[in-house]
């Protein structure tokens, strides 16, 4: 495993109290994810993977156990402190992109900077957003609104938004769930190239082939880790895309 631990879960439980019945969604998960890893969480619905993802994303707090993100114990932080952690250390990519409508790609990417503590001028913000957009292959589309972009392009904007604050971890929740197989391969290619640049990626998916783009697969079942292994036969985005279509040349970025 990698030399530096970014995510460390120690016996994490999550219990939802819904009326009379307590739902034990996560029943004691301990794991470590190192810097530069590319982890895919898998599992059927109800396995606890989404709950774990919410905890990993600091959107939710564990009922019991400790979560150390980049060495900081975030399990007991207040709402606003969690918001700051999300802003500084995490980037989110969602299944349904969750871009702001009628807002340009550039402004969507700038969004996390609005809530940060930086002291950048609006010119510097724009320059930074444009640079990140370029790195996900969207140079020239900065002023486009989400409605003017394809699903794959929208997800690239979302990835750029996740990257703008140079996070420790990028969290992707079913990032290809709304995309066709060829676009899915493209997006996984973007993730792979980001990972090659050293960015830690944690992804949730229910598709085994999408999980094969990652380096490590964790399968959840009934709130516990059932399987945790490195991926043996890893897909490469370029190879998969070639299989899907010979004629389309893909722009998968080289590391800068």
């Amino acid at each position, binding site marked *: 495993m990698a030399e530096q631990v970014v995510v460390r879960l120690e016996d994490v439980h999550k219990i939802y109290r819904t009326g009379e019945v307590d739902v034990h969604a996560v029943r004691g998960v301990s794991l470590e994810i190192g810097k530069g890893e590319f982890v895919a969480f898998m599992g059927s619905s109800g396995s606890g993977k989404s709950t774990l993802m919410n905890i990993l994303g600091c959107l939710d707090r564990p009922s019991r156990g400790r979560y150390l993100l980049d060495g900081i114990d975030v399990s007991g932080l207040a709402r606003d402190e969690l*918001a700051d952690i999300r802003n500084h250390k995490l980037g*989110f990519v969602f299944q349904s992109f*969750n871009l*702001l409508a*009628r807002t340009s790609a550039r402004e969507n990417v700038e969004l996390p900077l*609005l809530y940060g503590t930086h002291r950048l001028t609006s010119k510097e913000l724009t320059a930074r957003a444009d640079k990140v957009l370029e790195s996900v292959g969207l140079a020239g589309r900065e002023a486009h609104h989400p409605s003017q972009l394809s699903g794959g392009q929208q997800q690239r904007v979302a990835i750029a938004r996740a990257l703008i604050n140079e996070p420790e971890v990028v969290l992707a929740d079913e990032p290809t769930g709304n995309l066709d197989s060829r676009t899915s391969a493209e997006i996984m290619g973007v993730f792979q190239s980001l990972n090659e640049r050293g960015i830690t990626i944690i992804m949730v998916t229910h598709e085994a082939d999408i999980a094969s783009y990652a380096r490590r697969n964790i399968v959840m079942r009934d709130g516990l880790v059932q399987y945790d292994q490195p991926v043996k036969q890893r897909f490469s985005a370029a190879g998969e895309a070639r299989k899907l279509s010979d004629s389309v040349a893909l722009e998968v970025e080289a590391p800068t």
Partner: protein
Amino acid sequence: MKILSTLKIAFRALRRNKLRSVLTALGIIIGVGAVIAMVSIGNGAKSQVESQIASLGENVILIFSGSVTASGVHTGWGSAGTLKIEDAEAIRREVPGVVAVSDEIVSTGQVSAGNQNWFTRIYGESPEYFDIRKWPLEDGASFTAQDVRGANKVCVIGATTARQIFGSSSPLGQILRIKGVPFLITGVLTSKGLSPQGTDQDDIIIMPYTSAMKRVVGGTTLRGIDVQVGSPNDLDPAQQQITALLRQRHNIRPGRDDDFTVRNQQEIAETATATARVMTLLLAAIACVSLVVGGIGIMNIMLVSVTERTREIGVRLAVGAHGRDILTQFLIEAVTLSAIGGVIGILLGLGTSRLLSIFAHWPTLISIPSIVAAFFVSAAVGIFFGFYPAREAARLDPIEALRYE
């Protein structure tokens, strides 16, 4: 989060639903417009009344014969002839602080000169009348105490009467037949305009009260006595002494009603402006109701907006927005809406009051404090009615909000 980018977001959100924003702001626009217009109408009426009251003269006490309540029956002022010339003389002689007294007789009648005739008000007065009422002559001279003693057939006429009978030629030295009696015109009064009751004060003929009594009206009683005192402080004591003096002279036993009415100018002014003030308050209150209704409209739309944008709120929270940022965003949106509505409403109100004064000839008076207040009230309406929706937005759970369909 910077205020400028929040404002930008607010403007974008409002532009996204242009029609909805305009309709929502309309509530505030109409409310503020109504407040401005109504207050300007009320203030206009008040200032007009005040200037008319001031045209009565300074430190004036008016005595009318007859009581407002004579033996429990309400009769008009001046209806019964209870005041005598001797009463006026007694006041002149005995009440301290009195500087001028004018006996007053009022009638109306047909007057003519050459082939022109006119129906007008005929007043019999003392020469002091013109000082008491601060009513200088435009041309010529007033009648004198000697004219009063001799009941001479001289008169001064008002600007309207002069215009109606003599047109552009000078009435000075002309003979005017008043109810058939020839009078010499010695002076023309300056124009005074409308009275608080709306009558044309310049449509008048003023002659010595003795002449009016003996040659035109007949009778020996006065309709009223106008008294002027030296300073505002003399008003109350003089009024009391006049009342006591007249009761004594008229042999009115204690417990019986006066057979005369004493009013000082301040009382008249207070009554008149109180009416105007109540009207202003009433109009403003009605207008404020529409402001509240406008505020409820804002609250309604902001609640809809928060629901519609639940996912957006979820995304903002996920990327690190604090609850306070979301609160500020929606609050600024509501305040922007209501403040813009307020500014447009102020312009609308100014325009309306201008149009009212031009076309309906209503006196309007724009007061700067009412404009400033209207703006801040509209902004406050935005804060007040925008707070609840904004707080609802800020309290959303990011996970729930992101999952919201």
